[in-house]
């Protein structure tokens, strides 16, 4: 009967695109904000 595709960790009812936070083919959850690279102002790279 195949898989329950609603249980693969993707919010299929999301009004927004999924790909910007897609965690990858093995991920059960989308990327969190701290996983997403962002081109912040260079001054923010304090470390």
């Amino acid at each position, binding site marked *: 009967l195949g898989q329950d595709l609603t249980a693969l960790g993707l919010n299929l009812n999301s009004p927004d695109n999924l790909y910007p936070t897609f965690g990858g083919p093995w*991920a059960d959850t989308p990327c969190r904000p701290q996983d997403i690279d962002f081109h912040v102002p260079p001054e923010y790279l304090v470390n």
Partner: protein
Amino acid sequence: RDFDDLGYVEKTDFLLREWVTLIHSPSGIREPTKAFGTFVQHLNMHGFLKTDDVITRFFRISTRLCVDMCCQALTEQSNSPTVVRTKCYQTLDAYVKLIALLVKHSGDTANSGTKINLLNKVLGIVAGVLLHDQDAHTLEFQQLPYQRMFIMLFLELNAPEPILETINFQVLTAFCHTLHILSPSKAPGFSYAWLEIVSHRVFLGRMLALTPQQKGWGMYSQLLMDLFKFLAPFLRNAELAKPVTLLYKGTLRLLLVLLHDFPEFLCDYHYGFCDVIPPNCIQMRNLILSAFPRNMRLPDPFTPNLKVDMLPEIAHAPRVLTNFSSMIQPPNFKKDLDSYLKARAPVTFLSELRGNVQISNEPGMAYNIPLMNALVLYVGTQAINYIRSKSHTPNMTTIAHSAHMDIFQNLAVDLDTEGRYLFLNAIANQLRYPNSHTHYFSCTLLYLFAEANSEAIQEQITRVLLERLIVNRPHPWGLLITFIELIKNPTYKFWLHEFVHCAPEIEKLFESVARSCM
């Protein structure tokens, strides 16, 4: 060759270590371009940028050294996986940074050719080292260093910088070309990493969303075809070993993202995908066939008295970006086909049809599936044009008594169970969102049911529809409206057939579908 091999490797190793230290230093982090300028002088001083040959050797040995360091670290059990991986990342990321800076700053700004040539060279070298490594290490092959190099180089070269934006499409082309060379069938040991890269959110964004005029779609569909071709023999046998199940579920996740974000992409390339997905891989195929353009509103298939042929979109032909007509081989078969379609003669063409699509007597492998799919779609599209040329629209009357329907009815009658299953699948693969193909092939399937000269054909048509309906969602709209019409319209006397009552659970299933329709 003014470098002795051993001395050369040592020199490369020394320079690489110097670079890793430099780029991870505070000044290197703050001003990588300045550190790069210093390092390029060292490379020049050692003659490492003197000729194309020497540059190639530098990259091949550097890649080898990075891979060896990484594999060495991975075998050391003393450290925690996080410590090991951080150590690998630092060296690999530094090497990638060097490549990215060399690509960005090679040749003058206007001349992107130098940059792209260097990128293609390096990608080709890394791919070559990977394939050689896989052959040499077989089951001990480690995908990590190569995955890291490819994805980090991709991220570096897709940073929002003007110099990179101008060469972005060539960068994407270079990566797609490399990933095609490293497709899972050629580098099975790299498959998981390969899918990770192809599914990466930045890769998806660049290939399918940000590149103008959908110029990345064709290349991306080629990569998906590579994946389906690799999976096909394993999926074909239904019971999946764990490694395949993981790759299959990963593929489903990727397809769900494509269905949700880029349905038009799946609409355009569905034909090629369904040509390589095994016929028994029902849910994955349904997922692809369920895609419909985002600007389209699908009427609820269970709407009472839904007039499908009154829908505005039903007359529009969908885009099919595969040249299926050229897949009808050999050429004289195509010539005979065209002349039969034109003249509805000679009748012998019909009796020879089966011989053209059958390739062996081996059960389960007796037919040329791509040829069957192409033949069905080609004849169907010709039929639609023919009916239109008479200023009619496809319906149960206008599709009948034509050369096109002769061919379909002949295939339905003349093929054995396996061949007819593939034939009916080729038709069912066209039951998608409201368009002229969905409409024509829905009518054709119902017509073949109504005109069947044996109950076996009617049962098999029902089976082909049913096996696509009982799997978990999603279900293509065209499949639903066809099945609902079959069980609802008394013309087909569906409920009178023996096979409908062949088992209590089957009967219950039909009734549950019927209840949701009525």
